[in-house]
């Protein structure tokens, strides 16, 4: 499970001075549930998820992943997390199998376990046809499957997806959506960020709307519909974000 407590991240920019990319964000994600972080570009989604994956260190606040603190025990956190985004590319000169095995070994799997795990995943994702092909020779769909296999090889309890369908064609995006659902059905804790409303509507048990680094509202889709008197998630999003956006612009 994920417990974010007052997560904040500030950056120094030469021109703009201090930037609060994430500002005091707290939320919980439960096992077997999908938490959707919805926000526009630059809202702070990626920075939040990078802090949960311990790629970035919070300036203030912290988060617990399966009971491990992201600041104190980053390596234990990463051992329990599968992180997938469009920015997590593959090593072009390794084959699909070598790549998955590499990450399995980095996660401390012994060779017999690794072999069994890789065979299982490759069968499940129908990857045997290209397991010995180099990653730079794979199609986009094959690359996505290899990335999924990479995140699954150590059987993590928590899955973090940062705009996983960004720039993908419909068929590849559907594979990813199906995979996210499968993770939930397997009892994993899932958090994913997106700006695509339909994905959130289809998948999420809880939705958090983020803008200018602040988590403005959270709840189930039904709760948000009731609170804002709108059926369409896009309308709800606009209602939540607009006052904040106008205030930020005037500043």
């Amino acid at each position: 499970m994920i417990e974010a407590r007052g997560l904040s991240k500030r950056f120094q920019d030469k021109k703009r001075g201090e930037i609060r990319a994430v500002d005091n964000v707290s939320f919980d994600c439960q096992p077997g549930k999908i938490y959707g972080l919805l926000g526009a570009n630059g809202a702070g989604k990626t920075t939040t998820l990078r802090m949960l994956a311990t790629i970035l260190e919070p300036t203030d606040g912290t988060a617990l992943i399966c009971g491990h603190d992201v600041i104190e025990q980053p390596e234990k956190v990463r051992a329990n997390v599968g992180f997938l985004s469009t920015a997590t590319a593959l090593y072009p000169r390794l084959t699909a199998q070598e790549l998955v095995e590499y990450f399995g070994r980095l996660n401390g799997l012994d060779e017999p376990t690794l072999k069994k795990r890789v065979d299982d995943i490759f069968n499940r994702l129908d990857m045997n046809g290209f397991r010995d092909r180099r990653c730079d020779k794979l199609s986009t769909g094959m690359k996505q499957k290899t990335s999924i296999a990479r995140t699954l090889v150590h059987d993590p309890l928590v899955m973090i997806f940062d705009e996983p369908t960004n720039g993908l064609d419909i068929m590849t995006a559907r594979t990813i959506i199906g995979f996210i659902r499968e993770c939930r059905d397997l009892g994993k804790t899932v958090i994913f960020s997106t700006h695509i409303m339909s994905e959130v509507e289809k998948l999420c048990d809880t939705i958090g709307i983020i803008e200018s680094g602040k988590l403005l509202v959270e709840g189930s889709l039904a709760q948000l519909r009731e609170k804002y008197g709108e059926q369409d998630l896009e309308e709800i999003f606009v209602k939540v974000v607009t006052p904040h956006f106008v205030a930020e612009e005037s500043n």
Partner: protein
Amino acid sequence: MPTRSVGIVYRKELTEALRDRRTVISTVLVPLLLFPVLSVGFGSLAVVLVGKAKEETPKVMLRGGEDSPAIVDGLKKLEKIEIVPLADNWKEQIVNKEIRATVEIPRRFEADIAQQKQDTVSIYKYEGELKSEFAAEKIDKYMNSYSQSVVKERLAARNLSDSVLKPFEIKQQNVAPPEKVSGAAFGGFIGYMVILLCMTGAMYPAMDLTAGEKERGTMETILSSPISRTHLVLGKFFLVLTAALGTAALSVLSMGVSFSVLSYYTGKTASGRAEAAAFLLHLGPKTVISVFIMALPIAVLFSAVLMTIALFAKTYKEAQSYLTPMTFVVIFPSIAAMLPGVELTSKLALIPILSTSLLCKELVAGTYHWNLIALIFLSTCVYAAMALFLAIKMFQRESVLFRS
């Protein structure tokens, strides 16, 4: 287990490096081909060109000499010199390489010699131009032998022997063994090449494993795995170090083979290249091992420094622009070590690169100053450790890893 993680990263980086054409070219092919091309190729070309220049019959003009028929006749009879009629623009013709030289014989030259008056014969040439220099050399040689024959005649007329002008002989004799002579002559060059190639060997992988990884988008992928950043840097660092030492080892091997081939073709004559060949063939395993042990900390230093600098870059191209000037930082102290009179002292032993380069010169010559060796090894190890520490620190900095 730290060693296991570092080993996993190292093996993966090695697999990728061996599959990368650019790395294989810069680390394996360039050092293997550089010396054969430079020494055998250019060396043979130089021999052929110099030989051709020597074989050419240069055209030479004569100014004056109408009243000195014997000397003019002697010049005309000289082999491989063609005396052509004098033209007013003879200077221009030398510069334009139409003729190679002009000899000016003063008026009443032979009559003055008979009366024991001193005159000056001038040889006009194009300085630095090989064929003109050869022509001037031939004329100079002839005029010298003529001068000596005149001296001999004068001494004989006075019933004096040659020893009047040359009361004693001077003979310089070498007491250093041949390997030390060769070491003094070529030791600096060996150090220079080993150091430079350690640097060039490390350069490409250092960029590929840092800026290249950022550019390809795999940095975030690897940072999301449980490996600690220190182990990640060490795994990458060992690969860069392997490339640096591999390049240096292959170059020394290639250098040895090239010189032995050259030595075979030049028949081990007294020429510089043949001496170098003979010397390199006599490089003992002790010398080779000593040079490599001393090259180790410098290779560590280069690998860590290059990785740290390249990590700042967002792209491979940007990294190239940062690292190219580094070549000069390495070349200057390496060349300084080759300058005549620069000797290893305890103060110079603390200057990285220069100290190793100077030490290589001594090691190749078979001189082992153990105090200085220890000082250089330790000081370079300290610099190398500092550079590696810096590289590890840089890998912890988000502003460097995610620079935008």
